[in-house]
């Protein structure tokens, strides 16, 4: 990718930093890594710049204040979401219904009304898409310059992303979790578990939406149904993937100085808890715990999405654009 550019400006470095997926190969093959006097640590530098891009292009910009710290912001969001949902809960029906075992079609909506959930969900989703789009556009304007990304480039980026192409490193894999480890597919597998786990959970939500609004079948759904099967599979994959990431991260933390780590961890923990509470809701849906668990789970979901434009979730926007830009430049150079 570097060979397609001659001079380096800030935007170029931002572009490269978002192409970097911290595979560690350049660190492994660079003779100037510490203790060399030049002390070059490319993945570390790129990680710093990447973190900075998330802040710089955040929408709205003011919110970027939160994106660095992660934990505090996330806890606050959780508290806020829980409170909001609790107020909505209190606004109708019997105050004590949260402690009752409710079952049968529409049991979830006894706790929180269907309409309010639909509206809140749509609003949040709309907010995320809008914030992502604006940030992505700002970023593209900086890194793309006068060149125009075409549909072809975006399609390539799409296949690269969902095919986990770069984690495979052309067969070399990533030096992961340890920097001095031979390349392997450990990182690719871990990332795939999270990515596809997440997509399956998303599918669960969408299919539930379809069943309910088009076929008028109200949740909870039987075990052998699209929403539940994909929800369980996705949830388990997410839990395994996110835990693996956290474990790998932890055992190699002393060798790496990666400023992205706090943001990574916050996102992973949020994913993990969302998936975990989701499974809990499913497991206890016929008991008196369902109401409380549902409130917690939905609060987690909203944390995940409201923080999406500021935390690690946003990487998909900048990375996707950068890969598209890479394909564009590759194409323009006739490679």
């Amino acid at each position: 990718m570097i060979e397609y550019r001659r001079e380096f400006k800030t935007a170029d470095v931002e572009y490269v930093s978002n192409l970097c997926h911290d595979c560690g190969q350049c660190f492994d093959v660079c003779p100037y890594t510490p203790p060399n006097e030049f002390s070059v640590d490319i993945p570390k530098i790129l990680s710093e710049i990447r973190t900075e891009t998330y802040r710089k292009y955040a929408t709205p910009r003011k919110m970027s204040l939160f994106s660095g710290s992660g934990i505090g912001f996330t806890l606050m969001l959780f508290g806020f979401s829980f409170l909001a949902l609790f107020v909505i809960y209190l606004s109708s029906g019997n105050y004590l219904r949260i402690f009752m075992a409710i079952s049968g079609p529409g049991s979830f909506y006894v706790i929180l009304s269907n309409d309010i959930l639909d509206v809140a969900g749509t609003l949040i989703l709309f907010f995320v898409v809008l914030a992502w789009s604006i940030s992505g556009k700002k970023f593209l304007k900086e890194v793309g310059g006068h060149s125009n990304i075409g549909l072809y480039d975006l399609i390539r980026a799409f296949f690269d992303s969902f095919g986990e192409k770069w984690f495979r490193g052309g067969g070399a894999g990533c030096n992961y979790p340890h920097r001095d480890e031979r390349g392997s597919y450990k990182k690719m597998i871990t990332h795939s578990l999270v990515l596809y786990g997440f997509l399956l959970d998303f599918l669960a939500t969408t299919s539930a939406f379809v069943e309910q609004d088009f076929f008028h079948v109200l949740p909870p759904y039987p075990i052998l149904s699209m929403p539940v099967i994909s929800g369980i599979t996705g949830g388990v994959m997410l839990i395994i993937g996110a835990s693996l990431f956290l474990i790998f991260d932890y055992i190699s933390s002393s060798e790496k100085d990666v400023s992205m780590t706090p943001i990574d961890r916050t996102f992973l923990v949020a994913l993990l808890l969302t998936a975990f509470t989701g499974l809990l809701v499913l497991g206890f849906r016929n008991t008196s715990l369902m109401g409380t668990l549902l409130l917690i789970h939905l609060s987690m979901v909203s944390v995940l999405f409201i923080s999406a434009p500021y935390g690690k979730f946003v990487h998909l926007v900048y990375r996707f654009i950068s890969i598209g830009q890479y394909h564009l430049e590759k194409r323009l150079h006739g490679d």
Partner: protein
Amino acid sequence: MENSYSVLIIGGGNAGLCAALSAAEHTSDILLVEAAPKPERGGNTKYTRDIRYAHDLDGYTTGEYPDDEFVNDVVRVTNNNTDVDLLKMVVSESRNIPSWLQNKDVLIHRALKGTLHLGRTNLFMFGGGKAMINSYYAAAEKLGIKIEYNTKCTDLEFSGNRVTNASLNGPDGNRTVKVGSVVVASGGLEANLEWLSEYWGSATGNFIVRGTRYNRGELLRVLLRHKTKTIGNLSQFHSVAVDARSPKFDGGIVTRIDSIPYSITVNRDGNRFYDEGEDLWPKRYAIWGRLIAEQPGQLAFSIVDSKAINLFLPTVFEPVRDDTISGLAIKLGISPENLSRTVMEYNQSLKRKCTFNPGILDDCSTSGLAVPKSHWAAPIDSPPFYGYSFRPGITFTYYGVKVNSKGQVLSDDGNPSRNLFAAGEIMSGNILSEGYLAGFGLTIGTVFGITAGKEAVSAAGS
């Protein structure tokens, strides 16, 4: 810790690893000691990029490189000062290098399209020398070769023409190990500036060592003590012009500056001392280290103007910059009067009509100067002006031990040792006794490493 090994390999660079991996095809009772700690392993090899090898048309280069041409190239650069038998062996064995590399999981670049003048004769390792050496180490670990970092060999014991024991100094102190045979692959002595100063005097204080700080020639000293036949002497080394601000050791390839042919280059007194445009830069860059070593204070300064600044690769350190020549001189610590006079005389000596062309030996030259500039002589008149300060950067030394075609070390009387071998920089001088041919250091080390490793196993058994 074990105290007896079939094969001991001294040095963990290209030659040492090739020897170890080759020996491992026959035995697993191998100890490799590397003086550097693990993060700094790989000697000068980690700074390399390419290997020269004889080949027919293949996917790694832009054309064929026949044995004869290869042999002739070496004969030419060494002024016919080479052991032709050893040379021919290296050249014909070099054909196996790509398959050897692939076997050890070293990735090779596909042919680089016309970018470098080495594209036809040399292959480039994917990720460079450090990637190659990392693959070698991974292969060695897989084969059960014992590797001790931070461990130096400090002495060898002989009985007749056999080595019997080796003294090692490691993290746990000193110990002696019994050895079946030994391959010395400990590189050159370029980092031992104290030793070099026996010839160069205090000038070595101003030398920069481009490669590892661990190549101190200890084994060469040991072998000298044990009456080994040597080649070359302390005066010889390969060196280039590097930025004077480079680290004393381990600056690698990035500290080299290629401004000289598009500049005038002066010493501390502000005088030019050698034809900057004598020949194409790839043929000349290797003489400048030595030229600078001979200047007062081992310093030189290359002056270019804004027309020339983009003609060569950008440098790691920013050049010094000023709008006037005298201002630049003051910043660089040269006498402003002298530099201004040198620039003026140079500018006045230029041909009026010529076609400047950095790609060829063009017709832009000076006339009437005591030190001419034969090509690319363009006026230095467009501010801002830029200055780079240089010191000699030593790449490697030529001083080493004499070997035969098995890699066996010869004693003073010309008889080979039964079980003592040498490979790599410590014996490269047998073949490359002077001059330079890019990518040839690794060729010699690889071929002799593989040979010595194999021979060491059979010598250990007898």
